[in-house]
């Protein structure tokens, strides 16, 4: 005798809470380290210390801390970055990290600085880096003090967020290789400041600043950061810009990763499906935001599909499906079949199928992230035509880009369209 059951996964809950993040007064100047505890005890989950203390001190004022990196407990060891900023308002306790990697909340009703928006780290200069860090970045007075009677020496350098505009919401801050990323740099004071990339290595990735290992700014402006070597899997979030006067650090940017991602899916008609089914086959192609699809050698894409609005012969069809993950570094990505068994076409009817592409990237640790422009709708319409011989059925299968959401994954419209009508 045996008993059968379709297996369900045992998914461990993932939750972590920061230790108390107490308000403090403006005289706070010592370095404070706050450790985020991992309640699961999963060794794959490495939660970084909150380093470098708190810069803003007044209760009710904005606060910030150094961005932290968090490894989630999935097998590929993906890592997310949590922005260290919070707008003004009462804040008397800690932060929660929730399993979606989206849920950094500050336990008050103000917007979540790290996630749901507005993202202080992406929509505006990073609060954690804008302010000078008196404890770590004070210039060497002996080398940088200006002559009497001139302007004050550089006392701080703030970077705008190092993050490509093509980075989807919820992904760690990253830039693609091969593309210049202009980063605004704000100098407080005057004098020459050297800007370079800190942490570069074969594993962490490498980047240039204005085409070289370092560049010098004499005033506020911008620099072009360009990824050269992509970050290796498991090494996300170990790069940042650093501004120095001599050996003294004047400021640092957020941590970032170098990795290419797909941002658009394009479809084109390939062939008619005949025989025991009717429909269309569509060639699917994805881009890379680095401009080179071959850069996506650690990226795989999957499709999510959900049926909606079935009537007539399609009434009652509501299930959804995912495809397996397929490599994203080949072009075309593959061929999608949109087929209807003839045996199912018993009368008139129609149904829509929403489709969104998602990807996972071993370099950044992204998983299940929507390809920004990859939404489609597949519409099936069965009509009847009266003929001398009776009633004949025909089916039109159409596919077109549309902004949509499938099983929690949201995408703007993908590109391309096709429509074909076949007799049944």
């Amino acid at each position, binding site marked *: 005798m045996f008993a059968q059951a379709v297996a369900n996964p045992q998914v461990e809950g993932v939750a972590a809470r920061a230790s108390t993040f107490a308000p403090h007064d403006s005289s706070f100047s010592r370095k404070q380290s706050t450790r985020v505890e991992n309640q699961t005890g999963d060794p794959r989950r490495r939660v970084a210390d909150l380093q470098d203390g708190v810069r803003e001190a007044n209760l009710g004022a904005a606060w910030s801390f150094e961005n932290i990196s968090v490894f989630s407990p999935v097998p590929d060891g993906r890592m997310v970055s949590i922005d260290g900023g919070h707008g003004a308002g009462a804040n008397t306790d800690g932060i929660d990290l929730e399993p979606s990697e989206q849920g950094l909340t500050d336990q008050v009703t103000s917007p979540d600085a790290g996630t749901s928006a507005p993202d202080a780290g992406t929509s505006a200069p990073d609060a954690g880096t804008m302010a000078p860090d008196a404890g770590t970045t004070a210039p060497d007075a002996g080398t940088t003090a200006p002559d009497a009677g001139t302007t004050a020496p550089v006392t701080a350098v703030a970077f705008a967020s190092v993050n490509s505009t093509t980075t989807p919401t919820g992904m760690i801050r990253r830039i693609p290789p091969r593309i210049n990323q202009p980063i605004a740099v704000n100098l407080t004071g005057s004098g020459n400041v050297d800007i370079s990339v800190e942490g570069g290595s074969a594993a962490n990735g490498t980047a240039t600043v204005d085409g070289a290992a370092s560049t010098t700014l004499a005033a506020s402006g911008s620099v072009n950061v360009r990824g050269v070597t992509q970050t290796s899997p498991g090494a996300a979030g170990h790069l940042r810009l650093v501004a120095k006067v001599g050996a003294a650090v004047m400021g640092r940017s957020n941590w970032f990763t170098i990795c290419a991602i797909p941002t658009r899916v394009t479809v084109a008609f390939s062939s008619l499906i005949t025989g025991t089914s009717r429909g269309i086959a569509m060639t699917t192609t994805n881009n890379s935001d680095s401009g080179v699809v071959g850069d996506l050698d650690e990226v795989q894409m999957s499709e999510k599909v959900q049926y909606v609005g079935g009537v007539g012969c399609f009434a009652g069809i509501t299930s959804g499906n995912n495809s397996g993950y397929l490599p994203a570094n080949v072009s075309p990505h593959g061929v999608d079949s949109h087929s209807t*068994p003839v045996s199912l076409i018993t009368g008139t009817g129609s149904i829509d199928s929403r489709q969104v592409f998602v990807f996972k990237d071993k370099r950044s640790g992204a998983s299940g992230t929507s390809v920004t422009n990859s939404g489609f709708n597949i519409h099936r319409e069965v009509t009847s035509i009266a003929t001398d011989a009776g009633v004949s059925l025909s089916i039109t299968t159409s596919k077109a880009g549309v902004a949509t959401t499938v099983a929690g994954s949201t995408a703007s419209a993908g590109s391309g369209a096709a429509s074909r009508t076949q007799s049944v």
Partner: protein
Amino acid sequence: MAPDDRHLARPPLNKFPGLYVRVGEDIRAAPEADQSVGRSYPNWRDKGPNIGGRRITILTANVRARPNEEVRVVHVAEATDASAMLYTMGPKPVLGEYVDGILTTPPAPEEDPLRPPGLYDGPVVPGPAVDYGYDITAYRFTEPGTHRIVWRLGDLESNEVLVAVEP
């Protein structure tokens, strides 16, 4: 790995895409123990017979079990020939699985056995390719002895897994 399985060692077939399971409306990664079983497919010695460039195989972590111990079955379809196509949307319901000669799932369709029944919207992948996109089935055997599990889809028949249940 048998001589005719050497293609499985080459990219992209050597990249295991992972196993997924349904949890309500959601689709999630399968438990690591199942992933490990699925990952072993390229080196699995007792694959199903190759029929027309296609074969189906079932895999279990163990072939010995205690009474009422769960035995989980991973399902893999492979197209070894470029003319054979795989429908990789899923995880697809397992059809045509037999335990001790008894059909324990809905029957398999008589048409293309690897095409899931009903509407299909998703990739069709020509061989050589491997499709891990099937549900994982699980059984508990109460009676000691040898129990036979086999998966049949049309003219395709998997390897037979013999589970020895010992008190």
